[in-house]
């Protein structure tokens, strides 16, 4: 399955900004976070196709996954 993965703010350090990546069927967001060597507290805000998602979500072909550390502003 091809999935677009986008990382933001400090999560980019030593990783990447955006990339198309291949994952086997049944991969969860939690699996992806582990392969990216992030801990779950760092990956605080997760969006799939613009909607909040949990780490247990199984990604589907063509999904866009965006991961943010805890952030704020206003």
């Amino acid at each position: 399955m091809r999935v677009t993965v986008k990382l933001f703010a400090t999560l980019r350090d030593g990783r990447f900004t955006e990339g198309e990546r291949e994952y086997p069927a049944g991969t969860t967001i939690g699996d992806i976070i582990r392969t990216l060597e992030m801990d779950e507290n760092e990956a605080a805000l997760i969006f799939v196709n613009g909607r909040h998602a949990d780490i247990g979500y199984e990604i589907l072909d063509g999904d866009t996954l965006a991961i943010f550390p805890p952030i704020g502003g206003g």
Partner: protein
Amino acid sequence: MDKILRIDMGAEGGPKITESPVGAYAGLGGRALTSSVVASEVDPLCHPLSAANKLVIAPGLLSGSIAAMSGRISVGCKSPLTGGIKEANSGGQPAQVLARLNYAAIVLEGKPKEDTLYKVFINKDGAKIAEDKSLNMLSNYQVVEKMKGEYGNKIACISIGQAGEMRLSAASIAFTDMELRPSRHAGRGGVGAVMGSKGVKVIVIDDSGCSTRQPKDPEKFKAANIKFIEGLRSHPVTGQALPAYGTNVLTNIVNEAGAYPTYNFKQGRFQGAAKISGETYAELETKRGGLATHGCHSGCVIRCSGIFNDKDGHFLSKQPEYETVWAHGGNCGIDDPDKIALLDFLDDDIGLDTIEMGVTIGVAMDGGLIQFGDVDGAINLIKEVGKGTPLGRIIGSGAAVTGKVLGVEKVPVVKGQALPAYDPRAVQGIGVTYATSPMGADHTAGYAIATNILKVGGYVDPLKPEGQVELSRNLQIATAAVDSTGMCIFIAFAIMDQPETFQALLDMLNAFYGLELTAEGVAELGKKVLKTERDFNMHAGFSQIHDRLPGFFKTESLSPHNVTFQVKDEELDTAFNW
């Protein structure tokens, strides 16, 4: 802070200065104080630019002490933009300086008979006022330069630019930062126009010879302050994200969530967002020898601001806030970070609210005055405001006026004030705040983004109407209280998640004043402030029908989620039922 400085600008024989004890306003600070003075001393039916209106400038309860984050300042009046009560607050040094001089507030009242300009100088010996026609139509940076020449570098300034002098409804009041740049603004609601109507161009304050304000219980106060700072440093938002990227770290996430109003609120995502994100700005700042982390006042430990240099390494503006980057950026189809920083500088210099200006230009683009994406056209429009041309005066009067003049249907305002950087269709909680806040559309009044998007203080699904009224109500109450302490609202990220940090704040207030304030007491203060403000608005002619978003948010759906604003009118009407 036991006295109030009043200047009657319309007194016989010229402005008259009096100092009086705080009296009935004792124990109030910031927004609680400005809103109380306006509500009890200003006729709700008066013209905002008339002698009957008053401009109240008040530091917070802990300003001038060693308390971290305590340097916000509130400005209150009847707003020329909304016609209702207004509290606009700002960072910068003046809160600390005024508080050390022992003033709970400055109140400008009356109106000079002649069209002239004054400067006010305040130090430990009191206040003086002098006519100074040479200040006529100077910009904020120019007037501060001039004041430095006259009074030296140990001052702080509160000033208006050309927009305030022309009494335009989008005019802001500038407060200098620690390096004497007039880059922090009480932006919203046209408070600068009210200062202009009083004929006061600049207030110069100097606290030489004054000491830090002392708490009743210094030991307890110090201990609480240390805990408070620890809490701010250890929370990932206030300890890491805000210092590293500033508020503009929000561009990517709001865009990702499909809530980034683009092309005058036509779609929820902007193609050029990455080019103007906080990540991009921070990188440019570091590369060009600016600063990605900078505090707007002494005592700020979050330091969400920064210094943005041009490609040759010269100061262009302070790091523009998220709302500014959005207003002049995605909302206008502009994705050039340098030009957006220039627009930020022009707004600060002429003395204009960046949100109101960006939204106004977006409306002007929708009306065909210039094209979306025309950045030089946008720069030119802001310059027109500074010159005071007829077109500039229309633009400087804000989105509602400009929309009318150009015959535009989609004008994103509530109570005449422009909507900020979050589309209420894709973040329904903030829609409730925009609709119901006594301030008009104001994100800071009840920042539902925290819970809807950033998962701070829990989580409420941003795309559904359920739970949004309650969320907004609680946030509006908490914000009214925090705005009264003089604390920067960004402490909210830490105190919403960490009870011990909230307790440290209460401990500081209690140790300072010898109080026994509890969490419930704080909530009561917030409710009292909101009630005072809503009562004023009611007497100024506002009713439930003004607590509504413009119709198109209910009828036109927003991509990518194809949502409309779903919270029902009857539910909005319960926002203040507590």
